[in-house]
């Protein structure tokens, strides 16, 4: 597959502060790649480097096959960018502002901005300065998508959007991917990555903690399990899960049917094998959400 984005030992210092520490990222064409991490992890810094808004201290960047500084304006026409802290002002209407950005972007198909605005429920006839934060964010999303760029770089795209609009936005992201476009998006709200991203890089304090596809991140994560068995004392259940497989925070309730619930770390197979000795009446395994998976990774790093 073609690499749309590649960074090698990408490092950025702001004075003494090391914002990015030798980041290696690879994003393939036609995928949605998520950058997640807490504030200050380096997500925004990475994105600004891709757009040549700031320049790396060391290391290299290839965006759509080019160094952003060398590629310059023609390269940026092929990128749609939504800044993390979008501040739009002005006495002009949304329509006029979009027309301006269209003039300094790649080619915008006639009617596309209106179509996108309609999907996001955005009124383009209102003055930009009178728009709410959420509506300004929608305007930012429209200007990033409207020229159908090969690469979309979206910094905290769903911030300020209400849940319905978030869903529509995620649909737009998936459509862009299906269209062969590549999407890089960042968030500290992990659920939005979970739904949209094919792969994620977890950033922490300027380093990549892990790069993984969402599935294996989920697989490596903890699961909530609850099991009820018949014809066995509670002690037998406790004994079965005290060693290997280990259930963290195991609670066992006795009675006619003994129940156990807890948090399972790692591979699920030993747990199923251990259960085979019992008459299982009920079993629930809850799919982990990425939030817990990621928090687990953070916890290991600390």
């Amino acid at each position, binding site marked *: 597959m073609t690499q749309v984005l590649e960074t090698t030992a990408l490092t950025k210092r702001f004075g003494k502060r090391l914002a990015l520490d030798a980041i290696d990222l690879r994003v393939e064409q036609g995928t949605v790649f998520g950058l997640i991490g807490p504030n200050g992890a380096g997500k925004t810094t990475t994105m*600004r480097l891709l*757009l*040549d*808004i*700031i*320049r790396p201290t060391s290391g290299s960047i290839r965006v759509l096959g080019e160094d952003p500084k060398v590629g*310059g*304006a*023609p390269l*940026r*026409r092929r*990128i749609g*960018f939504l*800044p*993390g*802290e*979008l*501040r*739009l*002002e*002005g*006495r*002009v209407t949304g*329509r006029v502002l*979009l*027309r*301006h*950005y*269209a*003039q*300094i*972007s*790649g*080619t*915008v*198909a*006639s*009617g*596309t*901005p*209106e179509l996108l605005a309609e999907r996001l429920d955005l009124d383009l006839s209102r003055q930009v300065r009178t728009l709410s934060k959420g509506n300004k964010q929608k305007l*930012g999303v429209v*200007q990033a998508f*409207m020229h159908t760029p090969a690469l979309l770089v979206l910094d905290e795209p769903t911030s300020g959007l209400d849940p319905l609009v978030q869903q529509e936005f995620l649909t737009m992201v998936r459509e862009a991917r299906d269209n062969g476009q590549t999407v890089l998006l960042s968030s500290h709200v992990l659920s939005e990555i979970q739904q949209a991203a094919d792969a994620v890089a977890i950033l922490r304090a300027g380093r990549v903690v892990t790069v993984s596809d969402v599935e294996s991140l989920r697989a490596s994560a903890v699961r909530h399990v609850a099991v009820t068995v018949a014809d066995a004392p509670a002690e037998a259940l406790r004994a079965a899960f005290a060693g290997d497989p280990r259930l963290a925070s195991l609670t066992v309730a006795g009675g006619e049917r003994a129940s156990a619930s807890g948090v399972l770390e790692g591979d699920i197979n030993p747990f199923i094998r251990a259960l085979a000795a019992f008459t299982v009446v009920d079993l629930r395994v809850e799919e982990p959400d990425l939030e817990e998976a990621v928090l687990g990774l953070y916890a290991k790093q600390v």
Partner: protein
Amino acid sequence: MPLTATFPLPLFRRALGDSWRSLAGWSAGFLAALLLYVPLYRSIGGNADMSELLDSLPPALINALNYGAIATGPGYVSATFYGLMGFALITIAATMWSSAAIAGDEEVGSLELTLAHGVTRTQVVLERAAAIAVRLLWLNVLSVLVILALNDSAGLDIAPANLVAQGAALLGLALVTSMVGIAVGALTGRRVFATGAAAGVAVVGYALNAVANQSADLDGLHAWSPYAWAFGNSPLVNGADWGGLGLLYGVAVALLVVGVIALNRRDVTG
């Protein structure tokens, strides 16, 4: 929305489009200042009582204000409008516009979004500087036209060619001020520095000129004052001062080049 066509100078046109209200306000201010000062020539500059009053004032004050030639029409307009009120107004406009163009835009966070599009940093600086230059040019054209219109009725007896030379001098002075704001804004990204530097250069230039007017010993200070480059040889009285104009426009262009290079070399922060 016909968006697909490409138009030349998108940033220049947006800068002008966004600022037409501001420009209308400044135009009204210039008009008010001109209509206040110029028609009063007969009752102030050309008035015998006024001459007596001026004679009674300390010569140092007269020299500082360039009021020595106030008894003639060109001297009067030069001292009152161009030397003082017009200079002050255009300095404020040039300072505000130029500090907003790069540093102000960067501080509010919208420069980042513009630079993420298909424009070069050189283009951003040049188109925005051009938009400021056009607005400053307009204010000077307006002033020249109003003074010409009042020339006969106010009895000023100003030669139109000299008036154009004087306008070109004020424009050059304002360009120097605004290009200081652009250059310092591009260097630092801080609006307060850009504002301080632009206004500072204008004010220090004025003060140096006023001090240098006091004695022949201090005459060398004129060389360091953009204000003196513009008005030192009284173009409204004596005609175009090509050396002074060359210095003003040359320095303005040099500052613009500094701004272009500076913005190209540094990180833009949101």
